[in-house]
């Protein structure tokens, strides 16, 4: 019931690789790592959720905060490699319409 957050940076872009669960306990850690990236003007952030096997509305809340921050700072955020269960929450809430989600390169769904 933990969340591992790895950030790799280069070329004005950061890749945030998450593994574990995003819930009320781990979401603050994610916010702490993610928001400083989206707050950088013009910065691009890619969040890889391939190894996130559980997420709830606390996670959605963090990504909404991050999205707001991209609008304020002219930066970009893209979510990639979502597992079906996690993607489903974005779809149910309609957030997939306003957050950039790359569904083309999905993986890690089998298990």
């Amino acid at each position, binding site marked *: *019931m933990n969340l591992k957050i790895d950030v790799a940076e280069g070329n004005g872009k950061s890749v945030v690789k998450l593994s574990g669960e995003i*819930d*009320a306990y781990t979401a603050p850690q994610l916010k702490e790592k993610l928001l400083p990236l989206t707050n950088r003007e013009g910065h691009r952030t890619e969040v890889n959720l391939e190894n996130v096997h559980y997420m709830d509305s606390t996670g959605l*809340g963090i990504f909404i905060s991050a999205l707001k921050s991209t609008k304020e700072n002219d930066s970009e955020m893209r979510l990639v490699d979502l597992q079906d269960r996690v993607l489903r929450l974005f779809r149910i*809430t309609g957030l997939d319409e306003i957050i950039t989600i790359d569904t083309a390169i999905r993986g890690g769904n089998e298990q």
Partner: protein
Amino acid sequence: MSNFDFVEMRVPAKAEYVGVVRLSISGIANRLGFSYEAIEDLKVAISEAVTNAVDHAYFEEDDGEVTVGFGVYGDRLEVMVADHGGSFDLNKIKGGIGPYEGSESVEELREGGFGLFLIEALMDKVEINNDYGVIVLMTKYLHEAEVGLDDDQISTPQ
């Protein structure tokens, strides 16, 4: 009264226990024969309810507890989440409960308001009682297609 098992647990109103409750419902739902998909729905729904209760306790600034009750029926799982530590009086709670009226403003939905929305989307029935703290009562039915997953019952039509 119909025949059912009741499981109750009390956890500290702290975010680190949301995952513990999630594991518990996973075990109970698995025992009932819910599908993988349904168990994932239940995990999200109960986490949302417990998270709400934890947040509520936080604002109240007491070191509260969250009480979770599982009514295990043959055809459904009823889950109760209360943001106080007292044990449930089942009849009292069920007597005073009504349908949840979804009337949250768009503003609230922005960052933190998806909890109840998700609970409603993922469960078959949701009721909220505000008389003694906040109690969320939610039900998910075990649909027949899912019973077949229990591997010692070969799909004999009943």
